[in-house]
């Protein structure tokens, strides 16, 4: 019962970050602002959803696997955000 309530709260927070990230991704005016909004959805949105899912998992191995999914996405999103930000710089910025 407590786990259900915590899952409800954590997943609601995750949904909030997903919606906020997508709104920023649509509304912001230049590439780097949009990248900023995108990483919020990647890191926090998926993070809260995975934490909520961990509370509903049946055994420890499932929790480990869920956390692996999140860690892989975190590492990939952080690396890719740096790469895309650098590739989107204007030529006169001297990359």
């Amino acid at each position, binding site marked *: 019962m407590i786990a259900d309530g915590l899952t409800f709260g954590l997943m609601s927070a995750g949904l909030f970050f997903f919606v906020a990230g997508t709104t920023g*991704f649509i509304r912001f005016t230049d590439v780097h602002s949009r990248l900023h909004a995108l990483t919020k959805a990647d890191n926090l949105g998926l993070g809260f959803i995975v934490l909520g899912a961990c509370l509903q998992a049946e055994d420890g191995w499932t929790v480990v*696997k869920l956390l692996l999914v999140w860690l892989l996405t975190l590492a990939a999103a952080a690396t*890719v955000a740096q790469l895309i930000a650098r590739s989107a710089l204007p030529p006169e910025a001297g990359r």
Partner: protein
Amino acid sequence: MIGFLYFAALVILANVAVSIWRVLRGPDRADRIMGAQLIGTSGVAILVLLYLIHGQPGVLDLALLMALLTAFAAVGYVKSQSADGCGDAELEP
């Protein structure tokens, strides 16, 4: 609980639909690959929710695979812009 999980999956699916608009619209090529990355992350979240709804362990492996493919797609885009991945900030003067 199942109803809430379905609701969450539907909200994230709506995010996917909005991201597709950004992929179509652009205007920059970087925007399109960022849209594809948001779709990939949303797909991972939807697969995690579907695992909770149906309880099939194989779905989590699909989520891992999707996270991996999304990262490779973005790295492939950056490599197509320049062969050295647009340089290394640490190495340049």
